[in-house]
Each structure stands twice: as structure tokens, then as C-alpha cells.
């Protein structure tokens, strides 16, 4: 009942002050970390790009999509690399895939558990192993389908969902980004 003594303005002032201070603090944090974050993203990708498209000497990222175009020493286009993250069994599977001008896969790299991969270790996580990934190299888009669906990729026993997720994502990626190969 003694509320009449308190000014209704005071709560608003306090709220306003806290908001403004927070906004400043947040803007500062954002600005301080944004260069490092950009660099991190760049690092993570750059070290892997060469491994999935070995013919390329340098890469250029396309503005609005997750695609990098690879050029050789004479600045001729040799292929592209794209990232995608399809839903696997336990969560998204981070994939980086390289494709040459003949629309054949040149390399494929998959995120590790330390980087957030949530597939079952020993089963779905086997998509990371060389044996599975090797199957994609040199294959064309239409061959990239599970054997059970008429294609040439053998799924990992006991890990059909993870195998299928990777396979479908690679094929869809090639379809979606083939325009950048021209």
C-alpha cells in the first residue's frame, strides 16, 4: 500500500539503463570477436579444401552459397567444393565435397565427433572412414546412390541411415551446384 511513494519512472530508468549498457557490451563483444570468428571459419575450410580438390591451387568462395570454386596455377577453373550438413542418425553430418569439371567427385571430408558429429561411434561414424569415402571418388552424380537403390555406393552394415544421408547429400549437392562448374 505504500507504493504511492515510488515513482513509476524509476523502474523504467533502471530498465533502460541496463538495456543500454548491455547493448553496448554486446556490440563490443561482437566486434571484438567477429574477425577471429571469420578467421576460424576460413581456417577450418581452407585447410580442408585442398584435400577434397587436390588439382586446385587456390579457391574463391561464391558469395551467397556454400560453394568454393577451385582454380589451378594458370587461373583455369578445375572444379568446385561445397559443404552441406544433412540430418543423419544422431544429428547433422558436416560434409565437404570436391567435384571436378566432369562432375565427378574428387574428394570428400566429414566432420569428426570432436567437431560435433553425433553419429554412433563404430556404426554411423564409420562414414568418416577411408573405405566408405573412397567409394565416392571418381563417380558421377547418377552413380552416387546406395546400391540398394540402384547406385554404386555400398552402405555401411548397420548404419544405413548415416550412409544414406551422406550419399543423398552429395548427390543433391552436385545437382544444386553444377552450374558453378561451367
Amino acid at each position, binding site marked *: 500500500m505504500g507504493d504511492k511513494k515510488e515513482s513509476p519512472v524509476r523502474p523504467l530508468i533502471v530498465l533502460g539503463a541496463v538495456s543500454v549498457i548491455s547493448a553496448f557490451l*554486446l556490440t563490443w563483444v561482437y566486434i571484438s570477436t567477429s574477425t577471429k570468428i571469420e578467421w576460424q571459419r576460413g581456417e577450418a575450410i581452407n585447410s580442408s579444401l585442398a584435400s577434397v580438390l587436390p588439382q586446385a591451387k587456390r579457391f574463391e568462395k561464391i558469395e551467397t552459397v556454400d560453394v568454393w570454386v577451385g582454380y589451378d596455377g594458370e587461373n583455369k577453373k578445375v572444379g568446385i567444393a561445397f559443404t552441406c550438413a544433412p540430418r543423419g*542418425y*544422431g*544429428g547433422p553430418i558436416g560434409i565437404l565435397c570436391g567435384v571436378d569439371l566432369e562432375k565427378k567427385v574428387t574428394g570428400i571430408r566429414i566432420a569428426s565427433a570432436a567437431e560435433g558429429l553425433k553419429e554412433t561411434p563404430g556404426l554411423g561414424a564409420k562414414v568418416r572412414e577411408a573405405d566408405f569415402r573412397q567409394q565416392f571418388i571418381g563417380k558421377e552424380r547418377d552413380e552416387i546412390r546406395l546400391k540398394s537403390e540402384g547406385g554404386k555406393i555400398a552402405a555401411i552394415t548397420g548404419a544405413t*541411415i548415416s550412409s544414406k544421408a551422406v550419399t543423398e547429400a552429395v548427390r543433391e549437392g552436385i545437382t544444386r551446384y553444377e552450374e558453378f562448374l561451367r
Partner: protein
Amino acid sequence: MNPAKIFLAAFLVNNIILLRYIGLCPFFGVSTRFSTSFGMGMAVVFVMMMATFVTFALYHLLLIPLNLLFLRTAVFILVIAALVQFVEMFLKKSFRALYSAMGIYLPLITTNCAILATTFLVIDYRYNLFQAMVFALGTSLGFTFVILIFSALREKLEYAPISPAFRGYAIAFIAAALVSLGFLGFIGLFGLSL
């Protein structure tokens, strides 16, 4: 992704409580009785749908154009808190019956991770507004479904002979483990996965 698949995934395959571990505090706190679970469930559906709509709109109409993405966390949670306040006041005044059914759960929902998580997920999954609403509906109904099942279980558990160390939360967690195991079986349904 077509809406039916999004709904099914949110409701069963990626059930927010049993498979994403989100929304646990109210889950264990409220699921002791069927009636309280029902009230909480209704409140969650109500708030989640509205919160998803409002935060989605704010994100796309305000945060992106003004390049303020780093304010996402702060803005979303404030919106949810404000929304809950308004809803509670509105219900108290205009829909007394509804208020008595679920009103008291509303303040608890502000800290319900499920609401905030859903608002974040629809952005991360890059859904459009319609897909986001379907996802929110599926998620909140999945939440309600599970706490209802669970409240029935817990009401029974109260009469079961359980050793003292396990009574209460401990046995509830173990029961949740078993139900969650069952739900794991949904992965792969219609080709859906986590």
C-alpha cells in the same frame, strides 16, 4: 521438407524431451499428476506457437536487415518473457476458465528451455514461417504427449514398492530412460532421423 514430415519428426522422431533432452525441468516437476501435466501441456502449446511466430517475424524483419544477429539470444528470451506476461494478464481478464486451467503454469514456461530451443531451431533449420509453425506445433504436442504418458506412469509408481533410495526423482529418471529407449525406435520412421 513437407509439413507432414516436419510434424512427425518434431512430434516423435526428434521428440524434444526424450530425444533432445530439452524441457526436462518442467517435465520432472509437473508430471506427477495427470491434471497438472495436461495444464502444463496446453500452456506449452499455446506459448510455443505464439513465441515461434513472434520471434520468427522479429528475426527476419528486424534482426537480419539491421545486422543485429548477435542480439538474438537477448531479444528472443525477452520476447518470450514479455509474451508470457501479456498472455497471463489477458487470460486472467478475458478467459477465466482457460486461465484456471493453465494460467499458473505460464510463469514457469519462461524458463522452459523447450520454448527458447524451438525458436532457435526453426532459424537454424532455415524453415519458412509455415514450416516453423508446423515444427512448433509438432514439438509442443510431442512435449504434451510425453508428459501425459509420464504422469500416468508416475501416478502408478507412487504405489509401487520401491526402495527408499530410488523413490522420487531417481526412479522417475530410470522410467524416463525406458520410455526414451522406446522412442529411439522411431528413428528411421518414414526416413526421418535426428
